[in-house]
């Protein structure tokens, strides 16, 4: 059972590594897009999947990261990829400020406020706040990234860069999931009063989840800006946030593999049905209704954590 899962993972990695050999540019770009959404989904998963907070404004943090990168790289000529930590930080600090007053809100209320958040950010960008966001046209001329002296501009190069970032994200978030921090988020999702009563500072952990999720989304913003070389407010609409949310909920909220699958389903799958473009929303709607009825936890729900406790069982005197 366990082995079967690892075989699937291994095949998936092989597929990604060899994709440039048999996929054309169009499909490589689809994979790139899926990769970006996968990281965004994983960063939102910390908030929605583990922490159980209904956050539909994630595009706001993504936008702030992307704009930070765009503004600084175009005005000061800083190599784009260096701007990743800074873009993450800007988004994280922004999350800290805006999330603090709203995290105590419950489910549906939080949802509405976060929808407001993403709209406020988008409108601020259109209105050229501080005179640096370029208004509705956005910012263009963002330099291509370079990695180890190589300029990255071809689809397959981006494939490795983006999916490399997915791998790093999975590596770190898997550890996070299986740690005191990750568990604390799950506890507060399961039962906030019981979590608090067990000694978890629930307010702090909710905020930390927002900041960490935003930090990561901000870093993806750098990748996006560097890949597109031009960004505008329309890339960070409410609809974007809905897509991330769907990726997490559909794939399996709280499960890393589930979220990546979700990114393929929500972003990749519609590419096979280009002709049915107009039915896309209808399909999503139907899929979501289906899920809500038959598989409320998503296609790949989180599996139970396994701990090696056998050695504490025998001989050990109680307390």
């Amino acid at each position, binding site marked *: 059972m366990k082995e079967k899962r690892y075989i699937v993972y291994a095949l998936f990695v092989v597929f990604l590594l060899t994709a440039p050999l048999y996929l054309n540019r169009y499909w490589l770009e689809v994979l790139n897009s899926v990769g970006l959404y996968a990281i965004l989904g994983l960063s939102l998963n910390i908030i929605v999947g583990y922490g159980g907070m209904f956050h539909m404004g994630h595009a706001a943090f993504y936008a702030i990261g992307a704009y930070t990168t765009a503004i600084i790289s175009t005005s000061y000529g800083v190599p784009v990829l260096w701007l990743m930590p800074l873009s993450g930080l800007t988004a994280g600090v922004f999350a800290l400020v805006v999330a603090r007053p709203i995290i105590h809100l419950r489910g549906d209320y939080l949802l509405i406020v976060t929808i407001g958040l993403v709209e406020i950010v988008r409108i601020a960008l259109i209105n050229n706040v501080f005179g640096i966001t370029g208004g509705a046209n956005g910012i263009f001329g963002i330099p291509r990234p370079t990695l180890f002296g190589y300029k990255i501009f071809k689809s397959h190069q981006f494939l490795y860069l983006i999916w490399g970032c997915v791998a790093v994200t999975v590596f770190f978030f898997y550890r996070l999931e299986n740690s005191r921090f990750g568990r604390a988020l799950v506890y507060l999702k*399961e039962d906030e009063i019981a979590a608090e*009563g067990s000694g978890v500072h629930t307010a702090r952990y909710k905020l930390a989840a927002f900041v960490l999720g935003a930090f990561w989304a901000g870093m993806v913003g750098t990748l996006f800006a560097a890949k597109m070389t031009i960004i505008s407010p329309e890339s960070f609409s409410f609809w974007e946030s809905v897509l991330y949310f769907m990726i997490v909920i559909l794939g399996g909220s709280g499960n890393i593999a589930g979220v990546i699958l979700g990114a393929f389903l929500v972003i990749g799958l519609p590419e096979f049905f280009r002709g049915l473009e107009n039915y896309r929303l209808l399909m999503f709607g139907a899929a979501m209704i289906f899920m809500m009825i038959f598989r409320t936890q998503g296609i790949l729900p989180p599996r139970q954590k396994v701990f090696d406790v056998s050695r504490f069982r025998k001989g050990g005197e109680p307390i």
Partner: protein
Amino acid sequence: MILKLSNLTKRFGGLTAVDRVSFDVEEQTVMGLIGPNGAGKTTIFNLITGNYKPDEGEIVFQGQSIGGVWTNKIVMLGIARTFQTIRLFQNLSALENVLAGCHCRMKSGPIGAMLKTPGQKQEELWALEHAMKQLQFVGLADRAELLSGNLSYGNQRLLEIARALATNPRLLILDEPAGGMNEQETEALIELIFKMRDSGLTVLLIEHDMGLVMKACNRLVVVEYGKKIAEGTPEEIQADSRVIEAYLGIDEEE
């Protein structure tokens, strides 16, 4: 004296759920809080554990005033609780439930976890061992990997105790721990309570099972309509005419 309540008052709108209640809990004793349904017992617990803020009065724990302090801080200070309506993390294993109790005795944050620092790794191992000890203590070690929601009612109560114990409390607060338990389970619970007291813990409990209360408690406080109406040893309480009228009498009729 480990806990001192003085003139504790809590109102919900027009209803005074707790009305100037004062009592002390001595270290390493088992104190029982009894009274009819709706008397305000759980509300007193919620005040002690910081779920509610008192309108008046003071709660002093180990010489420190804790009225209105955040719940997680109070747990840190050494007060742990169980809930009247079981509040386990139903979708998590018994072990993960107890790991929740270990949380407040650990330090590592998200960055430590992502980098898997030696300190973090060691802490996780400690938590695992600590949690298993608590499960062993309440007799659930062999059920560590079961989903808590699938445990029997009695075992769920024990699991809540294990989770509370994992916080390394000085004072343990149990809200109707025998609720839903059969006779043998209740007997075992009494033994467990003695075992906890003998290991240095102070226990404050609410219970409607008079057999358990009379056997397990060193002292009792009786509340009715939010007011304390009597306090004393189980023998004294059994002989108190006000208590018989307010509480024990009703019990006999049922």
